[in-house]
């Protein structure tokens, strides 16, 4: 999966940020907790505020925090641009796929009761929220990649300059 739009290698964060040891350590400690919290929000959405969309944004926010402290390229090493793009499509397809499945099972589009007589609604909501979460997390990450790596020196791909 070689990506021609891979990370820009020399994308150094501003020196001021780099030298903030406290910030860096804090950020490094905080990131996994935000990611955990995102997962909690994802799966706790049935009981309290939250759900796929909020979880997705939180997940992306953790990556953004990490990126602000250590540079976009470090984040892109963990989650490459191509992976984020694939996951956008996967999330949407998961959601729509649930609908298509229920449709093929003979019920209405997105009628979760077709999935299981007893727990259809639970399963349906779980899957659909997962789709939302994946799509949103991936999109927000991709948006961050697009805007976070803007630089006065960067330019569009060959032939795409706004003339």
């Amino acid at each position: 999966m070689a990506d021609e739009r891979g990370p820009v290698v020399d994308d150094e964060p501003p020196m001021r940020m780099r030298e903030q040891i406290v910030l860096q350590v804090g950020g490094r400690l905080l990131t996994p907790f935000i990611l955990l919290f995102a997962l909690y929000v994802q799966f706790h959405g049935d009981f309290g505020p939250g759900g796929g969309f909020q979880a997705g944004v939180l997940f992306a926010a953790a990556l953004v925090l990490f990126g602000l402290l250590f540079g976009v390229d470090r984040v892109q090493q963990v989650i490459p641009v191509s992976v984020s793009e694939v996951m956008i499509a996967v999330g949407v397809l998961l959601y729509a796929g649930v609908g298509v499945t229920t449709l093929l099972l003979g019920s209405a589009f997105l009628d979760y009761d077709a999935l299981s007589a007893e727990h259809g609604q639970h399963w349906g909501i779980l899957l659909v929220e997962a789709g939302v979460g994946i799509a949103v997390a991936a999109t927000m990450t991709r948006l961050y990649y697009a805007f976070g790596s803007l630089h006065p020196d960067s330019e569009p791909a060959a032939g795409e300059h706004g003339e």
Partner: protein
Amino acid sequence: MSLLEALLVQRGLWVYWAIITLMMIGLYGVIARDHLVKKVMGLNVFQSSAILLYVAIGKVRGGTAAILLEGEENVLYSNPLPHVLMLTAIVVGIATTALALALTVRIQEAYGTLEEDELARLRVREDEEEAALDPHPFDPPGEPEDVEYPEVKVGGGAGGAGV
């Protein structure tokens, strides 16, 4: 005076009026500001206030958030439907913001300025030149761009390309 008091205090219409005022501040920003990024900020304020209007509509005084409390009877809940709708509206808002900002980045690159009146001047000049030169908007296939615009100044300093 008593009518106003009835409207404001007893019926609480001031909440709606305040929200409408916010909305109009945003709308004024979109229409009247010249900087393209500022317009996007105005759009943000406009959309957020419209969302606030919906959420206010869903409020039940003395009610609580629509997260069902087990075992408790006769709890008054606020209306969950506007909240559901507004989650979607927030998503639409961020999608619009992202797209608009991406466009401003490209416009900045292509024109070297984001001030609306300067852009308008540049565009008029371009239209006139086009009418005079009868140019070739369709480039030959496969060939690199042979028509380019002069380098634009990116970042820093007021874009002076228009003058």
